[in-house]
């Protein structure tokens, strides 16, 4: 063991408060220390060269540097070791600046502490072992899950940089919720006008493979090397042959509520979800098609000019490999029927915001004319109730859905444009219009479009004389109010989806209780999931409007590009390692590992022990803290090293 100790003056940042010469002299008394020097600036070139010279000349095999925080220069000094031919993990830094000289005034006390810190570092460094980071190949393909605007944007960004992308969409078409929208705030431009070109671009992009009507079934592997099983559900329509003429959809005698229009109208058993759908190819709903169920009908098959109806088609499971995954599974509206007070689905004219989007949409069930569902009449008074399923702890939705304020204002404007004589009332709690041009948008709704904002939640909606009566309050006035309305639009809160939760389990990424995916760090790693190599974009992470969704999607794409720009990934060697001789197979480590990095391994004698997948391990050390026989150790922070570090403090001679 040959330990070299280097104490940095850091100009006089350290030496002003710490007797660095004394500390260096003390270090020479410690076991294994063969040289100790002070350096003016250890991080400077001369400083680095001195350290390297000592390593070479004295044959040092461990290095302690007393300087600034390891958060500042650990990487610098690790490189110094590497350049001198030493393993970079044989280094221990003692923080003599941030945690000593800068915070202590009493020179003697600071020097004594510095000596202790060096004792501890020497204690620990003596137990350090060389560590080798392993390298894994990086697969350059990217999987994007979800074909809404987030998925589309992310896929295009990655594909545009020349990398291969596979996009998997659960429904028969891409477009997601944005495709349902009529106009979008804050500019009120047409959603379809900005979205459909992107959809087409995606479908025709040479680097993108699109799997609609498909689901991710199983995911294994780790960053750079994911293996994914994708189930392509049988459309029963041959995508090669079909020209998308839509003749079949017109002939189909079966009718079912149209998902795309949220049940506001019906579609056939063979249908194209909406006119701009991509791919523009029908799908047959196996659950209602009488041919599928009873082998009767088959009209579509008869009428199809290209013989594209393929009842014999089976689900197909693809096995693909990817280096990175972007999850962009979007959102749903929460189940508002828990609000019995709002009519429980009893009143046809109490509708959700997304339904209203369809009613407003020119391609929607009413052809863009505002007519209420019950009798098709134009409503005169339209009430919008905000925060239905948002900011409501009692219904388990304490968070803000963040877009309702904006689209409520949008509805007010669009409604007034469609029906200039209508009155629009918006029952709200607060207006959250924080982004660029948003506040102005809301103001415009009030000032230019005469939207009536009533601050207060509606307590009840009931029917009286054929009209819907809203019982509310005007908290600004401090008075209960009542409104008779013809159409009530609920600004229903946004929630994560059950299918996202199921997917999160497959991907082993974490999600919160509402079904939103959890980012790795709320501020600094907002698009990384908890699992390396898996990124998140859009409303599957939290309620989000379109601009933010697109921004996050591009951000996720850039993270992916950063990842796959490497041919090999170096995994940190500061990961847990199992000493299989000591492991007794209690698997407590497996239970607590937040990253599912631990698995069972069966030894030749049949006994089961734990094994760490170093590519998945993040090095938190929970496993080694819970392992009773200390069989699993976190490299760089083993019990042995920490004990030795503490003993360094407890057993050495004072000054």
């Amino acid at each position, binding site marked *: 063991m040959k330990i070299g100790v280097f104490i940095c003056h850091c100009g006089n940042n350290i030496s002003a408060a710490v007797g660095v010469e004394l500390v260096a002299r003390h270090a020479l008394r410690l076991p294994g220390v063969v040289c100790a020097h002070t350096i003016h600036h250890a991080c400077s070139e001369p400083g680095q060269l001195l350290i390297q010279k000592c390593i070479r000349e004295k044959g040092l095999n461990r290095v302690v540097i007393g300087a600034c925080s390891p958060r500042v220069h650990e990487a610098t000094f690790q490189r110094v070791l590497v350049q001198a031919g030493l393993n970079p993990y044989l280094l221990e830094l003692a923080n003599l600046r941030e945690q000593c000289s800068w915070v202590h005034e009493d020179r003697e006390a600071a020097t004594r502490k510095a000596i202790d810190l060096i004792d501890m570092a020497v204690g620990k460094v003596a137990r350090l072992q060389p560590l080798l980071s392993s390298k894994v190949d990086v697969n350059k393909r990217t999987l994007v899950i979800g074909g809404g605007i987030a998925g589309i944007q992310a896929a295009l960004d990655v594909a545009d940089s020349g990398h291969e992308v596979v996009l998997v969409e659960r429904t028969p078409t891409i477009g997601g919720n944005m495709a349902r929208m009529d106009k979008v705030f804050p500019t009120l431009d047409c959603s379809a006008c900005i979205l459909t070109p992107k959809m087409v671009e995606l479908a025709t992009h040479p680097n993108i493979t699109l799997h609609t009507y498909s689901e991710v079934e199983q995911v294994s592997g780790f960053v750079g090397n994911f293996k994914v099983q994708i189930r392509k559900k049988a459309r029963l329509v041959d995508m090669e042959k079909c020209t998308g003429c839509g003749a079949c959809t017109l002939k189909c005698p079966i009718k079912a509520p149209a998902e795309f229009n949220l049940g506001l109208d019906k579609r056939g058993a063979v249908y194209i979800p909406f006119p701009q759908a991509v791919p523009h190819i029908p799908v047959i709903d196996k659950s209602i098609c009488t041919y599928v169920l009873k082998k009767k009908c088959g009209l579509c098959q008869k009428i199809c000019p290209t013989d594209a109806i393929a009842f014999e088609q089976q689900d197909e499971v693809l096995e693909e490999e990817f280096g990175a995954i972007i999850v962009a599974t979007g959102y749903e509206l929460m189940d508002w029927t828990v609000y019995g007070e709002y009519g429980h689905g009893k009143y046809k004219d109490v509708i959700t915001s997304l339904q209203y989007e369809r009613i407003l949409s020119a391609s929607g069930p009413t052809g863009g004319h505002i007519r209420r569902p019950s009798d098709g009449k134009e409503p005169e008074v339209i009430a919008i109730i905000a925060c239905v399923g948002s900011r409501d702890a009692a219904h388990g939705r304490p968070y803000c859905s963040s877009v309702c304020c904006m689209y409520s204002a949008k509805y007010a404007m669009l409604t007034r444009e469609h029906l200039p004589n209508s009155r629009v009332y918006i029952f709200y709690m607060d207006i959250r219009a924080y982004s660029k041009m948003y506040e102005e948008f809301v103001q415009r709704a009030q000032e230019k479009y005469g939207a009536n904002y009533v601050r207060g939640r509606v307590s009840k909606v009931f029917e009286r004389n054929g009209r819907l009566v809203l019982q509310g309050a005007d908290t600004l006035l401090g008075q209960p109010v009542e409104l008779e309305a013809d159409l009530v639009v609920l600004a229903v809160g946004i929630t994560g989806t059950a299918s996202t939760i199921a997917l999160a389990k497959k991907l082993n990424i974490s999600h919160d209780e509402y079904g939103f995916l959890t980012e790795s760090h709320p501020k600094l790693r907002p698009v990384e999931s908890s699992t390396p190599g898996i990124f998140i974009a859009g409303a599957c992470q939290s309620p989000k409007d379109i601009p933010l969704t697109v921004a996050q999607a591009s951000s996720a794409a850039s993270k992916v590009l950063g990842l796959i720009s490497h041919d090999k990934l170096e995994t940190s060697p500061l990961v847990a390692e199992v000493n299989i*001789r*000591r*492991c*007794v*197979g*209690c*698997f*407590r480590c497996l*239970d*607590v590992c937040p990253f599912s990095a631990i698995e069972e391994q069966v030894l030749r004698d*049949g006994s089961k022990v734990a094994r760490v997948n170093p590519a998945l391990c993040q090095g938190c050390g929970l496993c080694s803290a*819970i392992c*009773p*026989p*200390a*069989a699993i150790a976190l490299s760089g922070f*083993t*019990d*042995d090293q920490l*004990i*030795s570090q503490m003993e360094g403090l407890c057993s050495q001679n004072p000054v």
Partner: protein
Amino acid sequence: MSELLNELKEKVAGVLPKVTCFIGYGAGFDPLRVAPVFIRKTEDIDRLQWNRFCVHNLATYLPPHKYPPGFLFEADEKIGILLKGCDSRSVVQLLQEGIIDRRKLVIIGLPCWGMIDVTKLQGRIDINKVNRVELDEQTIMVFTNQAEVSADVSELLYDKCKACQHPNTLIYDEFMGEKRELTKDIEPFTQVSQLEQMGLSARAEFWDKQFARCIRCKACRNVCPLCYCQNQCLLDTRVPHWTKERVDAQSNRWFHLIRAFHLAGRCTDCGECARVCPMNIPINLLPMKMNQELFELFNWRAGTREGEKPPLMSFQLEEEKIS
């Protein structure tokens, strides 16, 4: 008692064809003691005993980790076992930890009225010279060549039995006799509270004295059904160097603290560690204190609810009782 014993023998005779070995109690070296027996043949069933001395927690023989397959049982052996209420907690805990396989276990359960702590007779009579014992529900008469003494059974019960919370086997395939109802609520952690009436330094001194006696025979660890690390026990290793070789109060204390922390949330209060201690150190108090705190913090009692995650293996973002 004798009725139960007969029922037990019948039950075991019924169970034996299904298992390769039945673990029960048999005669010990004197009338005050019993010893675990491993019944493999029908003719051995008569060796079984059931009396007020059957204190051993037989669950300790179950974890395959403790005894490598082939040395106590073969890997595929199905085992029958007699479990008292308190002992069954150990089995539940072992099942919870995934250490034993319920399918390879046939459990005979019964009600228990508490076991006699023969050391409580010491002082009234030399228990190492006893050659005859007469016992009924309430009274015990003990004879040596020179003396005899009679005592009230309820006074002689183990402390754990006096604080018994689970008089009936919690998990079983067959149950003998009628379940015993607890007549009143008993504070389960009395022994802990007694010690806590001392001041801080008095407590330190108390433990110093206790641990000074410890000879580190490791019987406390080895008898514990939850201590199944065996060879790999942290207390037997020098890398990492947690424990010191020297046997003195300081390092003995450390030895027992390590064990207590390894049992935190897992100890089922069977008290075997204290029972087997040849130096009469109340070692069970350390894990029992953990149990008390874990009960207060998380309403957790190890070995009473299979399938529930132990408190130190789980968390809440907002902890109800931790600020």
